[in-house]
C-alpha cells in the first residue's frame, strides 16, 4: 500500500465513547474497518492490520512468524518505548525466541499458582490494610487512590522483597509513574529514583538475602554469572510497571462494574466462592489492554484468510476478541455466570501471555471479596459518563473513582 492512502485510514489507537468505560471501541470506528482484518493508521507513522476476531487473534499471537521486538525497523509501535535498546536489557516482553525464553524461564516458577498461594496471606493483609485506611479517611474517598493503586504496588513490594521501611518510598515513586498528572520530567525522575533504589536493593540481596524473588534470582542467576545485575534491574522494573497499572486499573474498573450491577456485588458478599468466575468475566468484559498487542511479520503469513506480508505490522485487538459473538454469547452482556468466560484473552495469548496472571487473579479475587464484605453500603459518587477515563494510557483505566458508604 502506498503512503498516500495511509492518511485515509482510521486513526489508531481507537478509544471508547466517553459515555461508558465498558465499551472498548466506538461503533463508528468499527464501521470504518474494511472486513475482519482492516487497515489502520498508526500513531507514530505507518499502518497495520487490525485483527479483531477471537480465532484470528489466537492464530496471530501463536504464530512463530511474528515478532514482538519493538526495536525492529517497521515495528507497529503503539506506545513510546525507551529510546535506547540497552536501557531495555531485561524487557523480555519486547524480545523473541531464545532471548525471550531465557528471561521468561527464570521467572515462570516464581509466578506458578502454587507459589502465589503462598503469598496470598500477604495479599489479604495488604487488601484489608488499604480498605481500613480508606474507611478511616472517608466517606467519601477515591477508590483508585486509596485502594486500586496501593494494593498492586504493595503486593509487588512483597514479591520483590522491598524492606518494610522502604515501602512508602516505593509506593510514592511508583504512584508518580502511574499518575496522569505527572509530566514526562516527573515520570523520568520517579523512574530514576526507583531504578536507583532497586539497583541498591539488588546489591543488598547479595549479602543479606531474604525469602523473595530478587534474592532468589541474585543467588541462583546473578552470582553464578547467568544474569547481569543490569538485566535483573530491568526485569524488576518491568515487573513493577507491568504488575502495577494493569492490576490497579482492573481493580478500579471491576469495582465500578460491580457498583453498576449491584446484584452481582450482593451475590459475591453472600457467597465469596463466586469470586473466581466473577473475576474471569470481569477480565473479559473490562480488558484493560485496549490498544491491543502489536506484532511485526517476519515472513508472509495468513491470518483469518488474509495474507500478511513480511515487514507488515498487525495488532491483536484483545478487547474486541473478548466481545466476539461466535465465542461469547451476548458478548456485550456482563454475565458472571457465563460458562465460556475463561476463553477470554485479557492476558494475551501465545508465548508472551502474561506471566503474572495467577498473581493478578489472586489480587482481584481478594480485593473484590474484601471490598464486598467490608463495605456493604458502597456506592459510586459518579456515573459511567462522568467518571474520569484514561483513554490514552498504556492500559485503560479510571483517573479516579469517587465512592461513599
Amino acid at each position, binding site marked *: 500500500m502506498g503512503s498516500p492512502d495511509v492518511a485515509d485510514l482510521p486513526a489508531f489507537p481507537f478509544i471508547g465513547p466517553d459515555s461508558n468505560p465498558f465499551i472498548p471501541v466506538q461503533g463508528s470506528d468499527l464501521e470504518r474497518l474494511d472486513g475482519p482484518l482492516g487497515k489502520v493508521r498508526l500513531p507514530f507513522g505507518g499502518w497495520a492490520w487490525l485483527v479483531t476476531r477471537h480465532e484470528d487473534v489466537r492464530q496471530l*499471537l*501463536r504464530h512463530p512468524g511474528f515478532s514482538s521486538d519493538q526495536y525492529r525497523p517497521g515495528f507497529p509501535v503503539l506506545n513510546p518505548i525507551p529510546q535506547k535498546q540497552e536501557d531495555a536489557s531485561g524487557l523480555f516482553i519486547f524480545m523473541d525466541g531464545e532471548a525471550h*525464553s531465557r528471561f*521468561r*524461564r527464570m*521467572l*515462570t*516458577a*516464581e*509466578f*506458578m*499458582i*502454587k507459589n502465589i498461594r503462598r503469598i496470598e496471606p500477604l495479599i489479604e493483609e495488604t487488601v484489608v490494610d488499604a480498605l481500613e485506611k480508606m474507611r478511616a479517611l472517608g466517606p467519601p474517598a477515591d477508590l483508585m487512590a486509596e485502594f486500586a493503586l496501593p494494593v498492586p504496588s504493595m503486593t509487588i513490594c512483597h514479591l520483590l522483597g522491598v524492606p518494610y521501611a522502604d515501602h512508602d518510598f516505593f509506593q510514592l515513586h511508583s504512584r508518580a509513574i502511574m499518575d496522569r498528572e505527572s509530566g514526562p520530567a516527573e515520570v523520568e525522575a520517579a523512574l530514576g529514583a526507583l531504578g536507583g533504589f532497586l539497583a541498591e536493593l539488588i546489591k543488598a540481596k547479595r549479602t543479606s538475602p531474604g525469602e523473595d524473588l530478587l534474592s532468589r534470582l541474585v543467588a541462583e542467576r546473578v552470582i553464578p554469572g547467568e544474569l547481569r545485575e543490569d538485566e535483573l534491574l530491568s526485569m524488576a522494573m518491568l515487573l513493577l510497571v507491568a504488575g502495577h497499572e494493569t492490576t490497579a486499573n482492573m481493580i478500579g474498573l471491576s469495582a465500578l462494574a460491580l457498583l453498576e450491577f449491584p446484584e452481582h456485588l450482593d451475590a459475591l458478599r453472600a457467597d465469596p466462592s463466586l469470586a473466581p468466575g466473577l473475576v474471569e468475566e470481569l477480565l473479559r468484559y473490562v480488558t484493560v489492554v485496549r490498544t491491543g498487542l502489536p506484532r511485526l511479520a517476519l515472513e508472509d503469513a495468513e491470518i483469518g484468510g488474509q495474507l500478511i506480508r513480511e515487514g507488515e505490522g498487525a495488532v491483536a485487538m484483545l478487547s474486541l476478541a473478548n466481545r466476539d459473538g461466535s465465542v461469547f454469547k451476548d458478548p456485550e452482556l456482563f454475565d458472571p455466570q457465563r460458562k465460556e468466560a*475463561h*476463553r477470554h484473552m485479557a*492476558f*494475551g*495469548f*501465545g*508465548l*508472551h*501471555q*502474561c*506471566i503474572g*496472571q*495467577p498473581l493478578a487473579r489472586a489480587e482481584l479475587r481478594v480485593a473484590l471479596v474484601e471490598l464486598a464484605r467490608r463495605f456493604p453500603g458502597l456506592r459510586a459518587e459518579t456515573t459511567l459518563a462522568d467518571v474520569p477515563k484514561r483513554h490514552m494510557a498504556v492500559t485503560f483505566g479510571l483517573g479516579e473513582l469517587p465512592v461513599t458508604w
Partner: protein
Amino acid sequence: MSARVTVDRDLCCGSGNCVVTAPEVFDQDDTEGLVTLRITQPPAALQESVELAVQLCPVGAIDMTRQPVGEKG
C-alpha cells in the same frame, strides 16, 4: 473413550492455565515452572477439562488423543 495426553515442555511458557483448568492432570515443576503430567490417561470424567486446557494453552503445548475403549495401540 480412553484418552492419552501429551505435553511439549520445550513449547510450554508456564502460563499455568492447564493447572487451573485440570489440576488433577497437570502440574508445574518446582524449578522451571513448566508443565508436568500427573496422569497420562485421564478418565472420562476429566477429559472435558483436558480438552479445555488444550484450547486455553497459549502455545499449543498440550495434545490429547482419544480412542474407543478396546482399540489399544
